[in-house]
């Protein structure tokens, strides 16, 4: 538990390195919601779609490679289907309407001092905080 912040920092540096590679090599902004969303709603076709699939393959596969050598992990995800479905829908709709999520607006946007990135991050953190207060401390659902 005391070492969590160090792992957080190391992981953060890896995440930022991924974003730097995607930007400097391919000239693209590493936004997870845009990469997945463009495949789902059909705005990314042909070569652009393959590029996104290659990116997502890396995201999906690396944890499988690292799993045997890494410390114990547990995702503590909710097993309440209504909560999971509502949350998934909100994340899917919200990130596409806002045109970005934690990686695109947060990591990539704020690191170039984009006002949109900063404002989006303020709003999703505020909404997330309020949701946790409401559904955990007041309603006791999560």
């Amino acid at each position, binding site marked *: 538990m005391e070492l969590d912040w160090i792992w957080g920092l190391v992981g953060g540096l890896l995440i930022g390195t991924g974003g730097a590679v*995607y930007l400097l090599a391919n000239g693209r*902004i590493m936004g997870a919601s845009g990469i997945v969303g463009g495949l789902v709603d059909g705005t990314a076709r042909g070569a652009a779609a393959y590029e996104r699939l290659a*990116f997502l393959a890396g995201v999906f596969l690396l944890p499988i490679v690292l799993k045997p050598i890494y410390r114990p992990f547990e995702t503590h995800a909710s097993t309440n289907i209504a909560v999971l*479905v509502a949350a998934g829908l909100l994340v899917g*709709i919200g990130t596409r309407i806002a045109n970005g999520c934690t990686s695109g607006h947060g990591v990539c946007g704020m690191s*170039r001092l984009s006002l949109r990135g900063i404002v989006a991050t303020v709003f999703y953190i505020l909404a997330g905080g309020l949701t946790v207060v409401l559904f955990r401390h007041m309603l006791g659902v999560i």
Partner: protein
Amino acid sequence: MQRLIFAFIAGGFFGAGLFVSGMTDTAKVQGWLDVFGNWDPTLAFVMGGAMIPMAIAWLFTKGRRPVVGGDFPPPPEPRLGRNLIVGSALFGAGWGLAGLCPGPSVASLSYGGWPHWVFFGAMLVGMFAAPHVRAQLDRAVPAE
């Protein structure tokens, strides 16, 4: 081909970072959002750590071109707009509810178990529906 290899490497770093940082642990994300509970500062270190190489990369784009050719993204759009605020608020609500956002939801599919697949499936449905929701929103409140 080069473009695909670089995309895979970038995704690999991203997936490794999400896994190592603990950001696929929904308890750590909700713990960071839960300022009235047992607050967990990890997410701030992840975000701070990620912004260091990314900020350097942005500086490095000046006067250069991407390795595979083409252009770098244009400067950020200065206009905020209603969709940015409404969308981010909806996203934040879902993020708080499940403790997952799009990147970690992909990274955790291989080991998180069925709840992660349910969330991921619902997220894809939401992303598919988003253009229609956005159109409804524009019709209801033509602010922009």
